[in-house]
């Protein structure tokens, strides 16, 4: 265990001084504020001023309600649902941390220091987990701050979700980012090239799974396969926090189990390949 602790401390030292990791966190916060909250504020502003045909005051009220503190968890978690950009950020983070040694050729240096490869890689994984925990807490805090400001601005309800729900939402964001970061780590371990890993990971998360699912839904006998995809289960877990709760393809408990299983699978593949492969 102490070998893993040493590896984690080393990796954390490196992560702390890596600007890209913290820039990525700032980008995530900015995306949440701009694309989740800013986008809706802009839409409300445009629709209200034009009094567009077909847009009723109740539609605008519903849009505003999504910004109020009572709904901030589901609004914020939308960043991690389906093709959420939070997933893309997590993939990039996993690739950055696990792929740095491929692009900098530092793997031979890391693997000859003393700890086993397994301990070294687990140390990296723990560092990624801590970074993502910070991202998740910051994301929830950013969403709460935006909701508080906009709720006050629009004169909406100032009811907040319970602390238990807030913690659950934070853990959900952490799990979803962990899943996609593990996917990024697995891809960069398999391909040993950061650009290829980021490309494939993002294309999968925002495109390929959606295409496959749309095909599966058209074939009734294959429809149940949707329940086994990481993106679909991620969306189902996020939906459980909002007004769509109960309408998702799977329940939150099953989604959590499937996501954890995928996370373990991705980490196991990354560790297994890195453990056995020659460092040339």
């Amino acid at each position: 265990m102490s070998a893993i602790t040493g590896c984690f401390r080393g990796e954390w030292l490196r992560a702390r001084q890596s600007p890209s990791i913290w820039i990525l966190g700032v980008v995530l916060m900015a995306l949440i504020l701009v694309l989740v909250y800013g986008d809706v504020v802009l839409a409300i502003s445009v629709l209200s001023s034009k009094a567009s045909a077909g847009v009723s005051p109740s539609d605008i009220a519903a849009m505003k309600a999504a910004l109020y503190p009572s709904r901030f968890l589901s609004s914020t978690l939308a960043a991690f649902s389906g093709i959420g950009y939070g997933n893309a950020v997590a993939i990039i983070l996993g690739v950055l941390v696990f792929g740095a040694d491929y692009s900098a050729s530092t793997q031979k240096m890391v693997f000859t220091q003393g700890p086993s490869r397994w301990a070294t890689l687990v140390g990296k994984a723990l560092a990624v987990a801590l970074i993502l925990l910070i991202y998740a807490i910051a994301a929830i805090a950013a969403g709460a701050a935006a909701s508080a400001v906009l709720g006050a601005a629009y004169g909406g309800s100032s009811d907040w979700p319970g602390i238990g729900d807030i913690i659950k939402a934070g853990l959900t964001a952490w799990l979803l980012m962990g899943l996609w970061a593990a996917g990024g780590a697995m891809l960069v371990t398999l391909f040993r090239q950061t650009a290829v890993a980021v490309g494939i990971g993002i294309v999968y998360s925002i495109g390929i799974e959606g295409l496959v699912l749309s095909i599966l839904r058209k074939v009734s006998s294959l429809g149940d396969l949707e329940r086994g995809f990481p993106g679909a289960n991620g969306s189902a877990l996020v939906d459980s926090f909002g007004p769509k709760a109960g309408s998702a393809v799977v329940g939150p408990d099953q989604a959590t189990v499937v996501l954890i299983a995928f996370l373990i699978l991705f980490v196991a593949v990354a560790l297994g390949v890195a453990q056995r492969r020659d460092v040339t």
Partner: protein
Amino acid sequence: MPNPTINASRRKAQATSGALLVEARGVSKTYRGGTLAVDNLDLEIKHGEVYGFLGPNGAGKTTTIRMLLGLIRPTSGAATVAGASPGSPGSLARVGSMVEAPAFYDNLSGRDNLHYCARLCRLSDQRVDEVLEEVGLAARGGHRYNAYSMGMKQRLGVAAALLKDPELLILDEPSNGLDPQGIVEMRELVRRLGHGNRTVLLCSHLLAEVEHVCDRIGVLQNGRKVAEGTLADLRGAGGLIVRAQPDKEVRADLVRLLGEEAVSERDGVFHLAIDPARAGEIATALAQAGRVVTELRAEQRSLEDIFLELTEESK
């Protein structure tokens, strides 16, 4: 930087009495695609000795070193390094290494790169300052790695290898890419590191470096060890060099005295494959025959001569 010399006699005493720190038996490595990089290599390095690994590019030196560090799995054969299997925590805890060009994180300072290594090895930060001092980088330790010159990067690589104060130090081409001044400095550094009780495996293209630093030398060619021994062993018994006039008559005299196979001539100089102790006998014979001897000395082959001869022979 201090300029100590190697205490060769002390090391040799330990080497002859010491246990094996590196032992490889029948180690081979075939890469995907069928390239045979190392072929049935046996290697023994004794505690306290400085062992030089020589060979042309592609001879299998770096592959061998990577196998000894557990970075590459051998296709066949077995090895123990510092009493444990290569690459295991038990082995790596006693081995410091620099394989080919040093590689560190660009965005960290030299000191922080060593802090990173120290955390992996669970060593104190104080040790980092000690090794930076040892390689002469203490004043530049706070500078970013990507601002380092090639020589500084090589020194940082050596510093990282020294962090654990290892029993076995493996240095693969430590002078690669250095300018002449850097090569001289690195040679002095390697000499100093080889001082005392530490065992060093030095892999180098620079024959002078190996010649001056190493107790024993192994020569690799096409993945096979083609020679091994002390420099004196590799030089062999040597011979005699004779320059005398007139050429044709001198040649006839020498052939009559020593036989055709012991006499060769290149550029007007006769090379005699005989015990150098027979110099007096040759001088007397040529003088009695009325030849004018302008040079007569024992032939001292340089490591370069030996290396080129061995690698040419085994092509």
